[in-house]
């Protein structure tokens, strides 16, 4: 190999010089094929923008999202100083949307952490231990799968009380079973493979095998699934917010904002329209990203 090798050549080298080299090279090639997927890149772009907006909310928003101005209620789109108009209490809709991005990200991030981890735990234990543990755990999973998700989430929130944290919990409770299924299926294939037997011969215990060898291999299929589920999580959270069971007023949660605007939909349509567009854009971005990721990480599952 020439010493004047460029970074790109190093990344695309056909014969990697170390394991790390091979790993990075594989990542880079995945990125190249992902980058050629325009729609997925658009999705990624929107999400990066969303994170930026949420982080810089105080700098970006023209007004305080909570300050009411009853003299300037329901101002239409393009009003001076209020591009997206104002809501029924005279609050600037744009500023509320910007702050709402934080809540959306917060909910998505929490659910995307809790549900797959819970599913991973249940699934790998069930798949690795087998026998009765497997039967019981999978039966429980099936029971949760048999429930209509939104109705179950509704019932949970009803029991736990309304609020963002409880909404997150309720959505996670309904979201984990598919992850458990995936993790179990992966575990079953990995468990019987030769390298696991080799590790066992070296004296590794079940805990070490599960955490060091099985979990890392389950991650990529879980990531794809989580990304594809994000849109559903956003829609579920917005639905709970819309029903008044998620974030509570005066919090600028997008679903709750639609619920508020609903009362004036025929005369002041923009109050409910703007947050809806925001939800649509973000979940569309997650769907585009998820499709792209699936093509890169799991080519078999693509159509």
């Amino acid at each position: 190999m020439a010493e004047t090798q460029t970074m790109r050549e190093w990344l695309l080298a056909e014969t990697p010089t170390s394991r790390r080299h091979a790993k990075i090279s594989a990542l880079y090639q995945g990125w190249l094929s992902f980058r050629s997927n325009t729609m997925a890149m658009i999705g990624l772009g929107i999400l990066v923008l969303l994170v930026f907006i949420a982080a810089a909310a105080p700098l970006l928003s023209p007004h305080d999202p909570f300050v009411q101005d009853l003299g300037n209620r329901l101002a239409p789109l393009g009003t001076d100083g209020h591009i997206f108009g104002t809501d029924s209490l005279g609050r600037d809709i744009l500023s509320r949307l910007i702050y709402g991005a934080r809540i959306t990200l917060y909910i998505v991030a929490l659910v995307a952490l809790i549900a797959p981890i819970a599913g991973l735990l249940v699934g790998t234990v069930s798949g690795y231990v087998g026998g009765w543990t497997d039967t019981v755990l999978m039966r429980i999973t099936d029971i949760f799968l048999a429930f209509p998700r939104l109705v179950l989430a509704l019932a949970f929130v009803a029991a736990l009380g309304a609020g963002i944290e409880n909404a997150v919990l309720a959505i996670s409770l309904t979201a984990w079973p598919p992850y458990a299924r995936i993790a179990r299926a992966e575990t079953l294939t990995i468990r019987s493979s030769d390298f696991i037997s080799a590790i066992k011969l070296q004296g590794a215990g079940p805990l070490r095998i599960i955490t060091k060898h099985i979990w890392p291999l389950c991650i990529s299929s879980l990531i794809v699934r989580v990304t594809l589920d994000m849109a559903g999580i956003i829609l579920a959270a917005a639905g709970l917010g819309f029903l008044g069971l998620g974030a509570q007023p005066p919090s600028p949660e997008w679903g709750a904002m639609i619920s508020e605007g609903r009362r004036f939909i025929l005369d002041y349509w923009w109050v409910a329209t703007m947050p809806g567009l925001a939800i649509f854009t973000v979940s569309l971005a997650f769907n585009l990203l998820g499709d792209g990721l699936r093509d890169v990480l799991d080519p078999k599952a693509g159509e």
Partner: protein
Amino acid sequence: MALTEDNNQRRPTRAPLTDQVWPFLRTTMLTLGSIAVTLLGLLFITFVIGRVMPIDPVLAIVGERASQETYDTVYLQLGLDKPLMVQFFYYLWDVLHLDFGTSLLNARPVSEDIARVFPATLELATIGIIFGVVLGVPLGVLAAVRKGSWIDQIARVVALVGYSMPIFWLGLMGLLVFYGILGWVGGPGRVGIFYVDVVPSVTGLILVDSLLDGNWDVFKDAFSHIILPASLLGYYSLAYVSRMTRSFMLEQLSAEYITTARVKGMSEWDVVWKHAFKNIRVQLITVIALSYANLLEGSVLTEIIFSWPGIGSYITTALLSADMNAVLGGTVVVGLIFILLNILSDLLYKVFDPRAK
């Protein structure tokens, strides 16, 4: 030539009757057993939810100002002094008798309420699924046959929008445009206020009832009210059904027996419909059953937007007024329907797939 051995291989011989009956009985028992366990689990979850509610069920019945004596009597009546498992048993017993307790709001049995509101949801979801299947299946098939063409792109956009759009928001926008601005459809509710309770309720499905009564005005009015929410639900079902149909078809179209059909000299139309489509029927049934179940659920938010007096509205209203019996009753019923639809699609699977015997 000695071809006999080969001829005898895997011949479906007529086994003695007992050999045929036993495996059948066994699978049936196993299926029934797993259904029973799922149901039990479902009821247990609703039971637990009911117990952790931060609402005192006794206070909810007797009111804040009742005496301690009254409170204690009701407490014992409800069996709240018993261990939790005994209470669960009572709960099971009641549910098996379709007794979900009385609604705290109107003091009527919850089961009666559900029987009253359920047809409205059924009507909505059924029209929605018909819409979704009639449009979604051909769209999915075409998208697969002409992969990469404009029709495939349309199918892709339809699905993406369906997966990304909050249903309640799209419903609001639909109301705004088609009712508020264009005035093409009826507004919220099942019928306009002049037509409420005009036709006698026989099936509970207002489109059917008005036809039975021969009352065209009610039928037209009811139709103008149901068309928007039903199309909305139908759109979501369309997005799902078309996407799934497309991927099933793509899988079949790359199968070798499709080449066989082409080698025979069949037209592409026949290859697609007589050969490939026949092979996805079974999978489609499952998807449609699942989609139907999802519509029943999706109707929760839709019914609120359109003030549709169905089970979704019922559960949410009950929820917001902490009427726990009503919430749990509704949840159990929806869960039951979910399970029933799953069983139904399993059964149809066995009918339509010669390999499943």
